């Protein structure tokens, strides 16, 4: 619980600037010399113990380490999104327009495709199906649904943006890139439904107006924000 509290506090510090990024395992690998390359990711991760959160014995589902850990992290977020939109589209909120049902159904299908893709790609390394908790969402209310959708999409964008540099494999990086732009398309569409034809589709709350950069968050910042919607206990003890 203490760690959780700390994590939540650290997210309040606004992880906007890339300057705050810690020295990553990738860099550790690089600076420790060429000889390290070729040794498995797991060993490299062990070598860089400064990065690791010690303490907290894993009590739930741990996402794992290295690229597989990041893929499981993405898989967890996609599971959450898919479950949300499946519920949204199973019985639309009061007054949903045709445009809204079309968009939300499309997004549902994209998130299912992402979810199923990660499950297949991870194979036996995949974390189990997550149990979600949507008790705080009023699915009959437009504002509640769209605001939650906005939260999930923006969170997804920042998560992929912030995870990219932890990915060692160029192929996985590319896959994350192929997905994150679709999440950003979703985010803009949802934001436009909430606040049509305004600057909100790429609002100053998510895109820093002085740099034109979208948000990025590391897993330890994203997971506490996703946590209220996930019943299954997830730990990311081996992720940044």
């Amino acid at each position: 619980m203490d760690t959780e509290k700390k994590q939540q506090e650290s997210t309040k510090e606004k992880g906007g600037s890339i300057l705050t990024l810690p020295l990553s395992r990738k860099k550790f690998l690089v600076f420790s010399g060429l000889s390290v390359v070729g040794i498995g990711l797991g060993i490299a991760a062990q070598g860089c113990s400064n990065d690791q959160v010690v303490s907290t014995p894993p009590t739930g589902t741990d996402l794992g380490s290295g690229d597989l850990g990041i893929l499981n992290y993405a898989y967890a977020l996609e599971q959450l999104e898919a479950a949300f939109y499946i519920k949204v589209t199973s019985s639309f909120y009061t007054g949903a327009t045709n445009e809204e049902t079309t968009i939300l159904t499309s997004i549902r299908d994209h998130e299912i495709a992402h979810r199923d893709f990660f499950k297949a790609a991870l194979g036996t390394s995949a974390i189990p199906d997550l149990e979600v908790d949507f008790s705080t969402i009023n699915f009959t209310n437009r504002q509640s649904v769209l605001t939650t959708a906005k939260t999930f999409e923006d969170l997804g964008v920042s998560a992929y943006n912030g995870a990219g540099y932890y990915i060692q494999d160029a192929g996985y990086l590319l896959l994350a890139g192929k997905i994150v732009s679709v999440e950003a398309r979703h985010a803009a569409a949802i934001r436009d439904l909430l606040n049509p034809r305004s600057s909100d589709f790429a609002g100053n709350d998510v895109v820093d107006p002085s740099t034109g950069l979208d948000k990025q968050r590391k897993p330890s910042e994203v997971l506490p924000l996703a946590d209220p919607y996930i019943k299954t206990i997830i730990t990311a003890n081996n992720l940044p």
Partner: protein
Amino acid sequence: MNLENIFNKISSSDKKKFSRRDALKNGSMKGLAGIAASIPILGATGMKKVFANTSSDSIIDILNFALTLEYLESSFYQKGLTTNPNLIPAGDRNVFTQIANHEGAHVIVLRDTITALGGSPVVSPVFDFTASGTYADVFSNYQTFLTLSQSFEDTGVRAYKGQAAGLIANDAVLTAALQIHSVEARHASEVRRIRGQKGWISLTDSGGAPAAIYVREDNTIQGGIDVRTITTVSTIAITEAFDETLTKDEVLAIAGPFIVS
């Protein structure tokens, strides 16, 4: 109006607003440039040997390529907002003002980063947004303007994605490039929807934009997996769910008709 002058104006005014020195003074150094400057060792070239990637371009070359696209976008929107006050309906002006501001900021961030990495930012090309008359009414017909806007945004998304692997050796630059990439995707979604299109790309549907921008968007094989075989959603939805890359050559071929010199 001379486009280069417009650019110089944008650059100098933005520089005033966002210079690194000011940012440092304010204690809020933001953006790629500050980062690259603060960790110059990241610019070291030896890393490429460690993380071999398919692209042989240096990071600076990639950033100059991105800068050229940002010049194109920034110039396009500045012109759209200023040349003809009746072009963009009042109800959509906030959208394009926001996009223009982002593209202008991207220009500054990329220029500063290239400089911080020891490179020289390319100067802005001179653009012809009519593409020698193909889009003769680009700044008098809103639909034409929207078509090119969608073209440039979707191209931008695919172009950045295509270069990501080439930036894998530099965490700060890669992260910032991803942060620009998702903003271009937000723009693309909004513009597409203003046009009455879906916010995402279905198969190779170009919606009236040049077909070359949408090649391979009907791909269903991701990471060696044919996604059609492992999910229940439609093929169209699968192609929408994954944006594809464009190579630098493909992007330059798309942008070429708009570049005079």
